[in-house]
């Protein structure tokens, strides 16, 4: 008996009872579907992040003092960025926003919500403080949760205002700004005017407080000059900007300024796969196992129902091995069918969810093929025991009773 005949018999056996086929296939459809959905959504989300990343990477750069290798073999900033760096580059073609950033060395002072230090409070790492000048929101692809960012006027006047990162605001217990709450840098009060929600290229700012550079210079006279000029540039302007910005910042020694993309790919991996994924994945695996048991059950039922047919086939020349082969193939077919329908359902679900969220669905073709194969493997395993049972049936006994 050739494989083709065996396959024909198996297909006929599977197709003989469509209602039952539906039931036995359901478990693996749901299981495989959940797996494809989970993995597919994971891939789609990663793709989504990547394209967002690409967009940001293409339009956000940072200018920093070029490192110069000193006599001691260590790198030193060659020369600081000029204090009027923002003004110098804002007019340049291709530059859309610019912000000068530098961390403020607090030197013992702490940023707190109350001026008196309460030793009973659990010690928390106090938020870092950054000084800034220019359009921080634009240059960092940022977003404010509430309030506003300080503007050129605040900077010019040296106002003691502060924008808190989301996490820093939580730590300090600042949840609203309408009452113009104050926080204290050491003993100096700063008025909170905004809470920063997102800063794509500088996530660390979410855990920090940002004050106008003029106020920082006033309150922390020893502060070194800021070392980063963040820029948002027009799409495709990176070459132009890369050429012009160093000249604008240091016309005598443009090589002292280096320009780099504001994002590195390593920041991409984090946070793609959340807890929801794990749960869905587990549900998929468990359902698939249940589906395998379902297939085994239905195949076993079909073996005992078709005892007469098994006897007849033996009488017509089927060996035990061929009987076993038929039932293994039948449950393999059910499994593959479940895998295919499940994969298709999963793909449809991924596409639907993506459409609703406005994402571009990303799906590996090999994933759907692998899931179909997985369904087949489950069917194969599920068919093992029933097929052994079928092969053990004594033909003489199987043929004794029976209708037909």
């Amino acid at each position, binding site marked *: 008996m050739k494989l083709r005949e065996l396959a024909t018999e198996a297909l006929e056996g599977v197709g003989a009872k469509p209602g039952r086929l539906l039931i036995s296939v359901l478990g693996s459809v749901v299981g495989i579907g959940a797996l494809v959905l989970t993995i597919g959504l994971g891939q789609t989300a990663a793709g989504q992040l990547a394209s967002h990343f690409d967009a940001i990477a293409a339009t956000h750069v940072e200018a920093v003092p070029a490192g110069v290798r000193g006599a001691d073999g260590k790198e030193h900033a060659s020369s600081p960025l000029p204090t009027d760096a923002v003004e110098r580059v804002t007019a340049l073609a291709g530059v859309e926003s610019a912000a000068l950033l530098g961390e403020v060395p607090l030197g013992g002072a702490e940023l707190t919500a109350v001026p008196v230090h309460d030793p009973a409070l659990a010690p928390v790492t106090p938020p870092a403080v950054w000084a800034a000048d220019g359009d921080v929101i634009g240059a960092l692809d940022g977003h404010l949760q509430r309030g506003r960012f300080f503007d050129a006027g605040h900077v010019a006047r040296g106002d003691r205002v502060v924008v808190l990162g989301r996490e820093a605001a939580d730590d300090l217990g600042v949840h609203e700004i309408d009452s113009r709450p104050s926080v204290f840098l050491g003993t100096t009060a700063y008025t909170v005017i905004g809470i920063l929600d997102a800063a794509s290229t500088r996530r660390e700012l979410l855990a920090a407080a940002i004050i106008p550079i003029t106020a920082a210079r006033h309150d922390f006279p020893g502060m070194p000059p800021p070392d980063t000029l963040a820029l948002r540039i027009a799409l495709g302007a990176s070459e132009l900007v890369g050429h012009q910005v160093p000249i604008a910042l240091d016309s005598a020694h443009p090589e002292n300024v280096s320009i780099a993309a504001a994002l590195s790919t390593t920041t991409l991996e984090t946070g793609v796969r959340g807890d929801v994924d794990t749960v869905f994945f587990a549900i998929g695996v468990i359902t698939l196992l249940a589906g395998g048991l379902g297939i085994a059950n239905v195949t076993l039922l079909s073996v005992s129902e078709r005892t007469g047919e098994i006897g007849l086939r033996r009488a*017509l*020349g*089927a060996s035990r091995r061929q009987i076993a082969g038929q039932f293994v193939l039948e449950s393999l077919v059910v499994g593959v069918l479940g895998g295919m329908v499940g994969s298709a359902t999963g793909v449809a679900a991924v596409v639907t969810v993506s459409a609703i969220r406005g994402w571009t669905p990303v799906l590996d073709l090999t994933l759907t093929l692998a899931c179909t194969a997985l369904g087949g493997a489950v069917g194969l395993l599920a068919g093992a025991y029933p097929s052994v049972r079928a092969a053990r049936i*004594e033909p*003489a006994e199987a043929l004794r009773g029976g209708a037909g």
Partner: protein
Amino acid sequence: MTERADDDAVVVELRQLSRTFGREAPVTALSAVDLVIRRGDHLSITGPSGAGKSTMLNILGLLDRPSAGEYLLDGAPTSPLDDRRRSALRGSRIGFVFQSFHLLPTRSVLGNVLLAFTYGDVPRAERMRRAIGALDRVGLSHRRDFSPVTLSGGERQRVAIARAVCAGPALLLADEPTGNLDRSTADSVLALFDELNADGLTLVVITHDARVADRARRQVRIADGRLTEEPPAAKRSERDRMASA
């Protein structure tokens, strides 16, 4: 009678064959049976219920193995054969007809007949021709696309016979083939058996019905696992007398 020149070719030979069931309190279904069946024989097996008739047929059909003794098919001992060879031999040399017809309700009449070729090596193109030929032979080629559930009992048994003979077996084994049929339907099935036998098919029929047994040239009786054959002389001379009249 010249065409029966090689009729004495032995198809089946049983030598001191026994079959017992169970270990503690074993039941002896056949004990020390000797039997020779030649090509073209038409044999009936009668006997009380539980005498061992079906056991005998299962062993002849290689569906069961004897506990002792030897069964030679076409002159070759069958005891050394493994399941695969026994199955292949069963598929190619032996046809079965059952009391309950054992047709698959999910397949057409033709599909049921074609099932006989599933495990053999008859070429694909040849199968359809032979299956249709067999259905023609039993007078049911006009029903080939019907479902067997739409057929009468006699028609179903004729489909089963077509399935049993289409692969060209040497030996046809029938266990109560008319047990589920009324008298006139049974007669048409028996007439079909006679025709097949006349064409050289070796036939072994188990029956409770004396009328069915009477049609066979050789009549074997089993009681308590022991086999006796009635001397055929009387019947044969009677039949010859009728033929010459």
